[in-house]
């Protein structure tokens, strides 16, 4: 079920999703930009695979020690998921930073444009100011570079993890 949503191209979902967001009155708001991206099937699948790898014996041992189920989740399962969560954070951040189509649909007003929309709007039909465009593109890529250098060691692990899942 969750996997099936990964198979559908995003563009197919956009029309009904826009309809929903419009009826909620979320066009031209931050809600419309944030909430639809607030969870991801890819993330759920990634976490599921990682959680499956945690041996049941470990959880049973914790139960023997008298830990409540909630406590097991917080103290044992979540710390074991930490590398996968770091990887997920990077992937989601980069996807979001790059995404053009959804912000373009939801944010009609210039106030709510994100960087890709702004960049796309800088090239109009009559004249393209290359100095402006290149400066904007370079500055837009700075945060991704910072994220990359900060989390470099998770990156390779993440690509290996994701490739292992999809292969």
């Amino acid at each position, binding site marked *: 079920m*969750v996997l099936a949503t990964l198979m559908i191209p995003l563009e197919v979902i956009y029309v009904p999703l826009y309809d929903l967001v419009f009826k909620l009155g979320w066009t031209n708001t*931050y809600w419309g*930009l*944030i*909430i639809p*991206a*607030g*969870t*991801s099937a890819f*993330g*759920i699948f*990634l*976490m*599921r695979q*990682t*959680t*499956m790898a*945690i041996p*049941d014996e470990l*959880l*049973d041992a914790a*139960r023997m020690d008298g830990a*409540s*189920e*909630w406590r*097991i*989740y917080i103290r044992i*399962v979540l710390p074991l*998921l930490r590398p996968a*969560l770091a990887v*997920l*954070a990077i992937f*989601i*951040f980069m996807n*979001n*930073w790059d995404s053009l189509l959804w*912000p373009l649909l939801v*944010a009609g007003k*210039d*106030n*709510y*444009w*994100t*960087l*890709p*929309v*702004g960049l796309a709007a*800088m090239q109009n039909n009559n004249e393209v*100011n*290359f*100095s*402006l465009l*290149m*400066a*904007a*593109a*370079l*500055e*837009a890529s700075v*945060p991704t570079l910072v994220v990359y250098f900060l989390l470099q060691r998770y990156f390779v692990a993440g690509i290996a993890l994701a490739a292992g899942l999809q292969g």
Partner: protein
Amino acid sequence: MSLQGVEAERSAAGLSGATASAGWVFRFVLLGLGAAALALPFAYAISTVLKPAAEALSVPIHWLPSRFLWANFLLPFQQTNYGRYFFNSFLVGVSVVILNLITVPWPDTASASCATRAVIFSSWWSWPRS
């Protein structure tokens, strides 16, 4: 282990110093070419920012601008609502990541295994332990 020992082991494995270093040179050249290919668009972007607008599309590319216009880096902020776009992107990106980190581990814990499923139920419902 002594140096001679290492040498002996290497020659025993059929790895003379020469072939090993040839492999290294080949690898460095290959990686270097790849890195250069990836860096080229960035170099072009930087040089285009710095040169006067008229030079941007000159057909043999002039990699070095005739004048260095560092102020061009401020153009997006002066001519468009760039600071606002940046803020929006950042706000959306950060909150989406946080939302994902909160929402995503939940369904997994529910489906991972019978034992872990109990994590969610048993806190308010006395589920028979497996």
